[in-house]
């Protein structure tokens, strides 16, 4: 049973465009929602994270939108650049269980 569903599996965007990746979860006990970025041959790195008490968080070109009632959240990358080409993972965490459950990943390619 997949607790965290991420879409799309892959995404191609033109340079300067907006990349949008979506995530849906089932467990209402989750209280921490990060996004990780992974380049080939490297480990995932924390990009941006949100707690359920806010609906949006922005850091530079990266924004998380969070819809608690729908149990969904998304990552928006504004003005996408070729250097943003990577695999992106959403994750859900619970302070009770102390573990992160990752989505299946989205491979983003930004074309010059």
């Amino acid at each position, binding site marked *: 049973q997949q607790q965290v569903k991420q879409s799309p599996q892959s995404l191609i965007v033109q340079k300067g465009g907006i990349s949008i990746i979506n995530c849906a979860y089932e467990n209402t006990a989750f209280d921490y929602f990060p996004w*990780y970025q992974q380049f080939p041959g490297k*480990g995932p790195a924390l990009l941006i994270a949100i707690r359920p008490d806010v609906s949006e968080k922005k850091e530079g070109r990266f924004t998380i939108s969070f819809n608690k009632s729908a149990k969904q959240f998304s990552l928006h990358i504004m003005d996408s650049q070729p250097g943003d080409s990577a695999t992106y993972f959403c994750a859900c965490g619970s302070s009770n*269980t102390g573990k992160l459950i990752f989505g299946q990943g989205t491979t983003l390619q930004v074309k010059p």
Partner: protein
Amino acid sequence: DTAVSQTPKYLVTQMGNDKSIKCEQNLGHDTMYWYKQDSKKFLKIMFSYNNKELIINETVPNRFSPKSPDKAHLNLHINSLELGDSAVYFCASSQGETGGAGGYTFGSGTRLTVV
């Protein structure tokens, strides 16, 4: 300075062998993890330790045995390796359960290939 370092980076071994992967973090974090990333890039937690104490043990074959000699080190020993164990294994650390604002810090991974 590397925050979370794993060794070796690559490991090629035959079925039935026993192998170990080592992990060290210099961030002063109190919690460490092992994650497995399969060929489809799916990341699945295997174990986590908090201050040398096992707190998460997912449904992992008992051929996998983690050991934490101190809170800066978490090693993974795998007995009787099978073809299906081939994957990239990531060590990670965090301060607290989910890492708070800092999240998890991952190592660069160990690519294990069983032939």
